[in-house]
């Protein structure tokens, strides 16, 4: 269906080395808000059970890209395809997302899980067992009755992750799930993500840490000012970056150069 070889300069097809059709694909995705291009020419393929890390400086458009892929923000150009077809509500149900700041309902931890399962169409008789299973996986059983909004940041992030996974998605979007967590909580979240991946869930995750991208990523996409600057295997790109922005970002120079450039422009 997609003869996108002409686009391979963006690197989208370096990511898709498997021959299976992609689970989720973006083609020439663009988002322009009030004349400002926030995302442009984004091509990427996400294959089943693979882990894609989205990297980039603050404000590069990582969160917006995730929102467009999941269908929370309406793109202004290009297409997003689920198994080769345009996205619809059924397709969104096969996806789950954990936000940069977790959204907790004003209920107990257990009720938060039950609500998500109900929304996902799980039968009432099965919800409790599924919720219990998710609690155990996230090691939150002892907090089941606690109001969710009283949990610590790390516990809330684990609950958000457990809630997303309880619905058994085929793909999981994560927006900086370990930002502002301590090393132990980060490890717990990374373990949950790895466990989900072993169960066959595709992972699309925004992160600011090259180390985390190496640990958890099969592939990476590096965004620079709303466009894909580099894409490919995580191990390769992060050790031998070919684009200037990724090189600069890895060396921690990106921010400094940006400020110098904008100063020169003025």
């Amino acid at each position, binding site marked *: 269906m997609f003869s996108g070889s002409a686009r391979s300069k963006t690197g989208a097809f370096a990511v898709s080395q498997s021959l299976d059709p992609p689970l989720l694909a973006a083609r020439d995705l663009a988002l322009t808000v009030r004349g400002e291009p926030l995302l442009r020419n984004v091509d990427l393929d996400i294959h089943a059970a693979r882990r894609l890390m989205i990297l980039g400086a603050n404000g590069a458009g990582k969160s917006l890209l995730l929102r467009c892929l999941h269908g*929370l923000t309406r793109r202004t150009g290009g297409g997003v395809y689920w198994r080769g077809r345009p996205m619809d509500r059924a397709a969104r149900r096969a996806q789950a997302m954990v936000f940069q700041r977790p*959204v907790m*309902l*004003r209920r107990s931890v257990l009720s938060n899980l039950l609500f998500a399962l109900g929304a996902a169409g799980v039968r009432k008789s099965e919800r409790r067992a599924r919720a219990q299973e998710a609690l155990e996986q996230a090691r939150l059983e002892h907090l089941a009755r606690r*109001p969710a909004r*009283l949990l610590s940041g790390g516990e809330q992030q684990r609950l958000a992750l457990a809630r997303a996974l309880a*619905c058994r998605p085929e793909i999981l979007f994560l927006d900086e799930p370990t930002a502002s967590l301590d090393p132990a909580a980060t490890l717990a979240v990374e373990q949950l993500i790895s466990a989900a991946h072993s169960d066959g869930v595709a992972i699309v995750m925004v992160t600011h840490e090259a180390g985390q991208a190496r640990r958890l990523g099969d592939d990476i996409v590096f965004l620079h000012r709303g466009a894909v600057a580099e894409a490919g295997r995580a191990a390769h790109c992060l050790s031998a970056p070919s684009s200037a922005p990724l090189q600069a970002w890895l060396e921690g120079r990106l921010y400094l150069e940006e400020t110098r450039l904008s100063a020169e422009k003025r």
Partner: protein
Amino acid sequence: MSEIGAIFRAAFELILRWDSNLGEIVTLSLYVTFFAVALACCIGLPLGAAVGVFRFPGRTAATVLLNTLMGLPPVVVGLGVYLMLSASGPLGPLRLLYTPTAMIIAQLVLVTPIIAALARQITEDLNREYADQFTSLGVGPFRKLWAVLWDGRYSLLTVALAGFGRAVAEVGAVMIVGGNINHVTRVMTTSIALETSKGNLNLALALGVVLLAIAMAVNAVAMAVRASAMRAAYV
């Protein structure tokens, strides 16, 4: 001075021995307002939440309308309900004028917009916070409506209590449609007006004290509910 002192003493005596006349008036007042507010919640909460949560053409107009109806003058409501219920009105054959049911209807009309308007604000704020999560989970419209009503339960309970406070203290509307008939449609506020004009200050003052006590109790409950909800971070 000693005369006012005597009136106070007589009023408290009426309350303490729970004078049968006083008891009847207070009971009817609470009965009418309780039913009016319960019905107003059944209508106003889902209505307010629907306006707060769903996008539809005319949503802004609906919001403005609710906020305007919130400030309806009670006597105008009374007049409107009177016209509907009077012998020549569309509901005349039901013969409801000058019955407690008529007073319930008047208070219902008065309080429903208040509850709906406040519920809209609360549910809209909640929905703004939850919208992305709901979309991500694929939550359907009815589950969404129910979810914001449930998650706003403590705030909405204080809304219901505010509605109760407003309805129980209202005079004009129930006077017009109830007629303040002895042993039939005499509630606290209308009795206070009547007894004062008749010079029977003992009963008037006793009713006034009871009315104040009810208002205070309602406020105390509202504050306690809010405090316990705060502790669970549910507000």
